């Protein structure tokens, strides 16, 4: 998540992402209306995905032999939940040349990365479908539905959505604990209203402290404010990197250590929240369990 918001995704303003979605939806509808018979008759059979999020959605939905290549990040266990599965596909690095030589009949990409590559591939006559970053569970449903249509796997998509909704219902069936939680990522980043993680926090029956501080979207939560607000639970997202960086020094700051001494900090691996998918609910379960443990203590 930390990476997703801080580096890869550049948070869009709500209005802009809405407009983008509208445009995308229109484009999809238009394309579908235009080429509906062709798609229905012949789903793509050699698909290349260039984004760790579309990689995972495609892996969840694609039929046998349909997905040909996924990005190198798909097999990075710190970024991808399906890292183990990714080994079955050819790896790409989002380079136009590389994708061209794979001669796919469909390319799937994210809207915020590899923009020039996408433009080039389109000029070369490839069909490219783009997916915007996910900011809510509604976005996840929409993406799964669209991916299902693109891949001709509508049934599988409906199944996945039903499963996710059932899990969500299961979470909300439990009485909300109303405990406060602060999301505290590297470089002091936190997620407030309008982000998938914020929805995840709410799905877990918790109260995001960012709301109280009026922090919206992906924003910085100074260590001082974290200490001052003294939340019931702190959600961190420490990556397991081969080398250290200053970004994670917040986790070893004496004030942070004193705040979390022996209690109320839980690490939610970034891979669950970088991309929106049914597995994102795993993050909600981790947070809920941690909050309950706190109560037990």
């Amino acid at each position: 998540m930390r990476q997703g918001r801080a580096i890869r995704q550049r948070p869009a303003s709500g209005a802009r992402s809405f407009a983008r979605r509208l445009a995308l939806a229109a484009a999809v509808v238009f394309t579908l209306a235009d080429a509906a018979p062709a798609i229905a008759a012949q789903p793509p059979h050699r698909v290349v995905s260039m984004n760790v999020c579309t990689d995972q959605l495609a892996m969840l939905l694609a039929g046998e032999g349909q997905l040909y290549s996924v990005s190198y990040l798909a097999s990075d266990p710190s970024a991808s939940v399906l890292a183990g599965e990714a080994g079955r596909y050819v790896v790409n690095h989002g380079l136009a040349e590389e994708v061209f030589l794979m001669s796919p009949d469909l390319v799937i990409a994210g809207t915020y990365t590899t923009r020039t590559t996408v433009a080039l591939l389109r000029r070369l006559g490839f069909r490219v479908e783009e997916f915007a970053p996910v900011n809510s569970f509604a976005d996840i449903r929409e993406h799964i539905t669209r991916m299902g249509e693109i891949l001709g796997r509508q049934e599988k998509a409906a199944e996945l959505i039903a499963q996710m909704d059932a899990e969500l219902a299961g979470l909300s069936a439990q009485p909300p604990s109303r405990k406060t939680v602060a999301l505290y990522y590297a470089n002091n980043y936190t997620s407030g209203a309008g982000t998938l993680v914020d929805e995840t926090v709410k799905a877990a029956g918790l109260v995001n402290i960012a709301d109280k501080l009026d922090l919206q979207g992906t924003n910085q939560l100074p260590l001082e404010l974290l200490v001052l607000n003294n939340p019931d639970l702190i959600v961190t997202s420490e990556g397991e990197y081969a080398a250290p960086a200053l970004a994670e020094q917040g986790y070893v700051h004496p004030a942070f250590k004193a705040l979390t001494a022996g209690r109320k900090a839980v690490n939610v691996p970034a891979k669950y929240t970088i991309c929106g998918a049914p597995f994102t609910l795993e993050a909600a379960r981790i947070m809920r369990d941690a909050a309950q443990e706190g109560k037990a203590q």
Partner: protein
Amino acid sequence: MSDTARYRLLLILLAAGAMILFVLSLTVGPAAIGFGDSIAALFDRKEAGPLALIMQEIRLPRAILGLMIGATLGLSGAVLQGYLRNPLAEPALLGISATASLGAVLAIYTGFSLVFPLGLPLAALAGAVVAVIVVQAMAGMRGGALTIILAGVALSSLAAAMTSLALNLSPNPFAALEIMFWMLGSLTDRSMTHVWLAAPFMVVGWAMLANVGRSLDTLTLGRDAAASMGVDLRRVQLLAVLGTAASVGAATAVAGAIGFVGLVVPHLLRPFVGARPSRLLPASALGGASVLLAADILVRVIAPGKDLKLGVLTAIVGAPFFLWLVYRTRRNLL
């Protein structure tokens, strides 16, 4: 009023200014805490609650580092100007901060400083020594002001490029984002750990630099004249080089490279001490501390929650000042 009395008064005023800014720095931050409460929390037991934690573990180290790093930059700027007899000399312009940054970057991002914490200030010190020696060698070869500044520019560019390279090659995805910290400096969320790591090196560096004051007075008349008046030039060089490297290296290791403080402060204070290099040292140290504390208060007031880098402010003020100084001294440059 005699010269000496005026000088004492100046030092008292500068010290008072630094103390006021130190206290102000303690009371500024994202958490809106009242003045009385924050000062009380400073002396409270640490277990007393979040206020004590904020004051003692977040704001106090920040203010202490602001004070010490500012003093380091002011003092080392004054010593370098006196030693090289060049009003344009200062740690950042001479590439000392940039090479110290490079040393610190190598120590941190390879994980070396995790296994050996002292490796961080030591690596920064080593980087700084390289820069001072290169600049000194250039200055020694009958180099004028221009030679020294150009050598500094070359060193800075090289060190900045190497820093970027090291950070870009790091397998940690955040490393590349931290180039800005190392180039522009910041005191955000520093801790007492950083204070304890850097303070001994800075204090030792200050002691060395304070020892060259008298010799710098004599050096006003040139190296030969100074040597003929009993100044041991080798000793002065050793103290100036190691003192600058130790204090600026340690400062840079915990706060990144912060430019122009060492240039502006000695220049502004020079007229008030009768241009006497030995008197400029304590005045610049106190003035540097005030300037850096003020800059660190401003970054928090101007852009709360945005983590504006200190070097941005110091450069906005310092770079035009530098241009003005170049304009004024341009006849002597060539």
